[in-house]
């Protein structure tokens, strides 16, 4: 290692980082299997599993029938009895067909059985808008599952994190739901080589600042960072926190930031009402950090409607960088 001087940091796309994590896990542990629709020779609807079927065969990279409930339940049963399944929903929206097994079974079996078993299950949910696929293929449903004790719910925003959090999820004895924004799949970034884990339940400060805390999830982290750069040009120093995990939520990182800046803007793509930002806001309002607030908390979330098809309409229903810039300015300048 010490003789090794890399000329440049290695870059992978978000999708390649997921694939590398699965490849490492499968090479190290025969119990790890992949299940999902068209994840074999097709390579997955978003080419995340890619060519893994050629390396590990159809016994470990298993194309399921189009049977989300059945497939998810098989993964739950397999996890209960010695395998480490990674189940891919083709679109997170299709998880609606499998909610029974996720919510009533995977999340609760351990508790209902008094701790006699664990369900070491990883599920992956390609999520979010921006692909022109309209209302049934564009949702951000992380708050649904974040509402269920027994599940862990993560939203990695970078290639480095998605690899590390997927490997952490595989080490975790409990069900971990990974929400992957589809627009991130092609985003490139530095990804360390080899095996490492990124902790579940820890937020990351992506940009330190003193004037306002922007707590963002998934793709909104990147929009928040772009907004922060613009705001810096106008003399506003924003701190950008990447929440990374919806459940269990990292309260302390958020609270420490709010105590420092006195202002909070939450940015998330899921529908605003009863969404992730509602939980962050309430959590801050219930804490001592409330006393540090110099302005009302602001939430920027998805509009109160299904995701539309028309590209201009589609953009309009989720927060965009200019929306964040404007919201932050209003908060900082005391306009709300």
């Amino acid at each position, binding site marked *: 290692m010490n003789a090794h001087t890399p000329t440049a940091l290695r870059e992978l796309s978000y999708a390649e980082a997921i694939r590398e994590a699965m490849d490492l896990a499968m090479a190290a542990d025969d119990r790890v299997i992949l299940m999902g629709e068209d994840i074999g020779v097709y390579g997955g609807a978003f080419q995340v599993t890619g060519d893994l079927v050629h390396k590990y065969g159809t016994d470990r990279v298993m194309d399921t029938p189009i049977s989300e409930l*059945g497939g998810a*339940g098989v993964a739950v049963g397999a996890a209960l009895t010695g395998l480490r399944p990674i189940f891919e929903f083709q679109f997170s929206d299709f998880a609606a067909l499998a909610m029974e097994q996720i919510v009533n079974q995977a999340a609760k079996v351990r508790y209902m059985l008094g701790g006699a078993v664990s369900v070491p299950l990883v599920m992956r949910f390609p999520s979010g808008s921006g692909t022109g696929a309209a209302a049934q293929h564009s949702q951000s449903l992380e708050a649904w599952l974040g509402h269920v004790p027994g599940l862990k719910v993560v939203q990695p925003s970078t290639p480095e994190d998605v690899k590390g959090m997927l490997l952490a999820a595989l080490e975790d004895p409990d069900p971990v739901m990974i929400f992957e924004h589809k627009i991130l799949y092609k985003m490139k970034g530095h990804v360390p080589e080899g095996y490492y884990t990124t902790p579940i339940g820890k937020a990351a400060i992506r940009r330190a600042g003193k004037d306002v805390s922007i707590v963002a999830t998934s793709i909104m982290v990147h929009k928040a960072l772009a907004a922060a750069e613009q705001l810096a040009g106008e003399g506003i120093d924003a701190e950008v926190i990447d929440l990374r995990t919806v459940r269990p939520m990292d309260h302390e990182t958020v609270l420490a930031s709010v105590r420092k800046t006195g202002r909070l803007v939450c940015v998330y793509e899921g529908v605003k009402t009863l969404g992730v930002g509602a939980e962050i806001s309430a959590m801050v309002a219930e804490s001592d950090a409330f006393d540090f607030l110099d302005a009302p908390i602001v939430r920027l979330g998805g509009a109160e409607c299904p995701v539309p098809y028309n590209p201009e309409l589609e953009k309009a229903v989720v927060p965009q960088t200019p929306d964040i810039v404007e919201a932050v300015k209003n908060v900082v300048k005391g306009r709300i």
Partner: protein
Amino acid sequence: MPDTQLEQNIPYAIRAYSPEQLTDALRKMFLIRKFEEGAEDSYTRGLIHGTMHLSIGQEASAVGSCMSLTDEDKITSTHRGHGHCVAKNADLGKMFAEFFGKETGYCKGRGGSMHIADPAKGNLGANGIVGGGLPIAVGAALSAKRLGTGAVTICFFGDGANNEGAFHESLNIASVWKLPVVFVCENNKYGMSTSTERSTAVRNIADRAVAYSMPGRTVDGNDFSAVTEAVDAAVARARRGEGPSLIENLTYRWRGHSKSDRNRYRTKEEISDWMGRDPIVSMSRLLVDHGILTNDGVAALETEAEQVIKDAIEFAAASPYPKVEEVTRDVYTVQEAAE
């Protein structure tokens, strides 16, 4: 050499199992009956809250289906699952303690009647969701195949589950992947109050097997030997790697669906007719007729079962309750995640 003609006149169970195994099977059937009567009595006396789904009248299906299983083999069960637990060698004291909501119960008082499980004995648990256990059973069979354990999974479900999507998806996946699972439908004629005639498009639920390219058989679920013969063949087929089967055990629950049932959907005549086909009476007769037990021997098994249940209830009653401050324990395996 035995006379083949004569052999065929002897019921399958008598040919396939030793006197000790058959006596143990009848003992378990008595235990199920007495367990449920004891649970009902405890409920009436206010010692148990919530609800319960009794399987009195269905004992041959539970015990007969599990005859060729070992502790390595798995089962998934239903809300009407006490019989399956006993058939899979559960500890009656821990079962009653769970009913009483005690820390010594199978689920430490967190699950109750609808979630009793015993993973060490291969019992992956009852389930409060109709059809909830079906894909889980298929997953257990996938593990067995992938890990090469040789284990078979029996998936118990009721007639009500046969109209759930989970039933159809599970049978299809099990067949496509040729997994070692046996689907055992306990058809007791009613999904709560709705009869199979009113709910199910096929005459026999086992007919649905055709759609999933697996063998399907409908048997008298109150006839221990018939159940054993059909399920053993399906288990053997699964063990040979030839894939899943669907067995339908026609049976009847003497009691209502649950404690809220006022029995408005079936007649007294129908109930008494089925009570005249008591699977414990016919199993007792089978063993007496074949010289395996005397009438006194049968009576002794019943008395022994009553004593086991009495002891189990005493154990449960004397056990401690869970601590309220530990209510969020076991939500996660590593507890700090519970926040």
